[in-house]
């Protein structure tokens, strides 16, 4: 029953986002055609093509028929056409999606691993000087906006020390293949992924630390200690493992905030992902592309939350009992 309710919430959220995405350009002042297709379309399209498009989107019909036409094209995977980029929105987004996934995915793995280890350690060392140092530095860094961390990284590690490239996802027109290409991609990925994961770190750290504190005072931990198990084993295998539960449950939210953070990081590092694309779309006032990106991001976040729920439900027996 509980699961079904949850599923309903997800579907309702998705529908709400689709409706919002549909309504916003139509509520903007001025010609909805221009709001949907952008000024570029007015420059390049002939009057006939414009009429054709208006008919195709039912822009001359009542709102609910327009919505029907909108849903219809959405289900066919048609997100509209970007006249500024002279390409279908879906193909433009599909082109950058792998890079965004690589960046956000690696940043999430990095921040989860680091945050977890630091959370376990700071929970274990509660009250010590090293705990204070961890908390102070990580929370301090996470307080900075992601683009600022990005710029500092770039200036120091790329411009000053020349350890990493100044941006992009790979060296353009190098002859790299196979392993050298992989190296090149990782080298370009390292700084943006680090910068992004640093901003996500504190949340996971604090979450792990809090549940670590609860777990450490639980009877099973005392039992493990009484059995003479090594502290490292108690810390990670017993208390630490159970502290992972809230972290995994929050994974969905983390995907959302990492995606939001990546929008800025990508601009700073000229990384060819969704954030960079969104930035260009904003500058061009490319409304079809903006809408497509918003929808993709919203659906990704909903999916991530849904998956995180599923995972938490699977690995935590208590959730199933509820």
């Amino acid at each position, binding site marked *: 029953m509980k699961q079904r309710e949850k599923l309903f919430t997800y579907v309702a959220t998705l529908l709400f986002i689709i409706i919002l995405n549909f309504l916003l350009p139509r509520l903007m002042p*001025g010609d909805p055609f*221009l709001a949907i297709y952008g000024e570029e379309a007015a*420059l390049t399209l002939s009057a006939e093509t414009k009429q054709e498009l208006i008919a195709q989107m039912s822009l001359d019909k009542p709102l609910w028929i327009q919505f029907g036409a909108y849903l219809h094209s959405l289900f066919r995977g048609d997100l509209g056409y970007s006249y500024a*980029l002279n390409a279908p929105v879906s193909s433009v987004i599909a082109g950058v999606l792998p890079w965004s996934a690589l960046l956000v995915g690696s940043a999430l793995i990095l921040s989860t691993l680091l945050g977890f280890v630091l959370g376990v350690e700071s929970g274990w060392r509660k009250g010590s000087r090293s705990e204070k140092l961890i908390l102070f530095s990580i929370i301090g860094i996470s307080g900075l906006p992601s683009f600022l961390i990005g710029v500092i990284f770039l200036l120091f590690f790329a411009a000053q020390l020349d350890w990493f490239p100044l941006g992009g996802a790979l060296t*353009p027109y190098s002859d790299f293949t196979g392993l050298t290409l992989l190296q090149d991609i990782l080298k370009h990925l390292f700084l943006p992924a680090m910068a992004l994961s640093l901003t996500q770190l504190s949340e996971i750290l604090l979450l792990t630390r809090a549940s670590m504190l609860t777990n450490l005072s639980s009877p099973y931990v005392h039992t493990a200690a009484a059995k003479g198990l090594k502290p490292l084993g108690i810390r990670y295998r017993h208390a630490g493992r159970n502290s992972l539960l809230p972290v995994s449950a929050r994974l969905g939210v983390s995907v959302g905030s990492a995606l939001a953070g990546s929008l800025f990081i990508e601009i700073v*590092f000229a990384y060819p992902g969704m954030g960079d694309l969104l930035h260009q779309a904003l500058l061009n006032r490319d409304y079809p592309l903006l809408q497509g990106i918003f929808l993709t991001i919203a659906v990704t976040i909903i999916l991530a939350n849904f998956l995180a729920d599923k995972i938490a439900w699977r690995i935590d027996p208590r959730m199933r009992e509820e």
Partner: protein
Amino acid sequence: MTRQRNHLIATWIIGILCLALLLVGCTNQAGQPQTSKTGEKSLTYTIADSVGDWGFPSPWGHYQRGPGYVRLSLIFDTLIWKNAQGLIPALASEWDYEQSTKTYTFKLRDDVYWHDGQKLTVQDVVFTFEYLKEHPYPWVDLKNIKNVETEGDRVKIILNTDFAPFLTNVAATLPIIPKHIWEGVQEPEKYTEPLAAVGSGPFMYTDYNKEHGTYFFKANENYYGGQVLIQELKFVKVNPQMVAAALTKGEVDAGSIQPEMVEQLKDKYTVLSESGSANVKLMFNHKKDPLARKEFRQAIAYALDREDLVAKAQRGHGVPGSPWLYVADNKWHSPDAQQYEYNPSKTQELLTKLGYKLEAAQDGEENSFWVKNGQQVKLELLCEASQIRIAEVLKEQLAKVGLNIEIKSVESKTRDARILAWDFDLALNSHGGLASDPNLLNKFILADDFNSARYSANEQLVNLLRRQSRAMDEAERKTIVQEIQKIYAEEVPAFTLYYPNSYWAHNGKMPLFYTNEGIAIGVPIPLNKMSFVEIE
């Protein structure tokens, strides 16, 4: 069982991460790619661009902005071209105009080959004009062309009416395309095969990557116009803040830089600066009172300290506006037009003449204000969010002379729509395109567009604007254009506040320069293809 599995997964993840870090570490020494270092030997020239993607470099593939055209122009040649001084021959070695028949004749060179080896002939030129009539190319307006004919190695282009901007706006802009490739293409905007980028210019298309925003061109060894000085030309995407670092590291040879970087770079690199092609201007709603009176508009013009505005809103990186549209060092500018030197007492004088009275400030109010028929003068200044700073300076300056301004910041589309609908008092607007053929005057004074003043109240001005494009004699045209500017400055249908500076830095390996009146129809980017060609 599960514990072991989890363990295994965790070990795997950590293992992969360690490997990744190791790989990254290794690349620091060995992986520095030679190609990105622009050594003298490889003769690769790399240009940084903050946007990167400007579309596929074919006439219908590139995005309709300057940088898109510039990439196209490196591959495709036009009948004639421009350098820093003016028009130069390109595909056509000579040209002339016969006014009685309204015919331009271009004599084509006979040593031009397309990148695929085929010879370029007059048929290609005729085909280009015919194809463009069917598939319009937004950069060139062909409406005034009556017919295109051939006569041996000559192409005759017959016009409907005399059209002075023809040479720059058509002959030096229209990319000639190969007939044997395009004749079967029905939807040119969807045709983005490598063949669609076969041109006759100094560079040959090799690659374009939309996601990464990169271009890769190779030198055309058989270029008719001279030897190409480099072997490879690349465009790469670089964050604008990092262009200076990329130059210093040798990763790029040239790039557009932000004003803040000029000081840092000017000793070691060549810094090119340009102003006058873009402007920020104050639009007046001259369709309603009080701004319908030109004296009122003049009064505002006298109250604006443009030097102060450049210092405050642009941190000095700009040129104070000229009331006649053209920047003062432009060859078309009118030296004896009204200047509107900052003079608040002139504002007082003009407003008093119009019947306004200056009332002293009451308690609690800082400034005095103007009143007519018991009504206080209050004007709304429409702007978009990025112009707030400029608006604040204007408000402050106008408050000093007793003019009360209320700033209204809206989304730029809303601003444009409201300007177009005359739903404003004052509005801030910015646009480029001022460094091109004087035909721009019609576009920014008469055209029905939100960038235009749409001012047809002065008949003499309208007549002169109509005449200017038909004046085929340059001296005659100059006189007309200067007269237009004088009237424009006198009428102040809109008021140019300043011209922002834009900067490029390069390492001097290639002699980059700004083109006279901009590349083609006026692109103010110092990437003229002739910079890369050794002229015999």
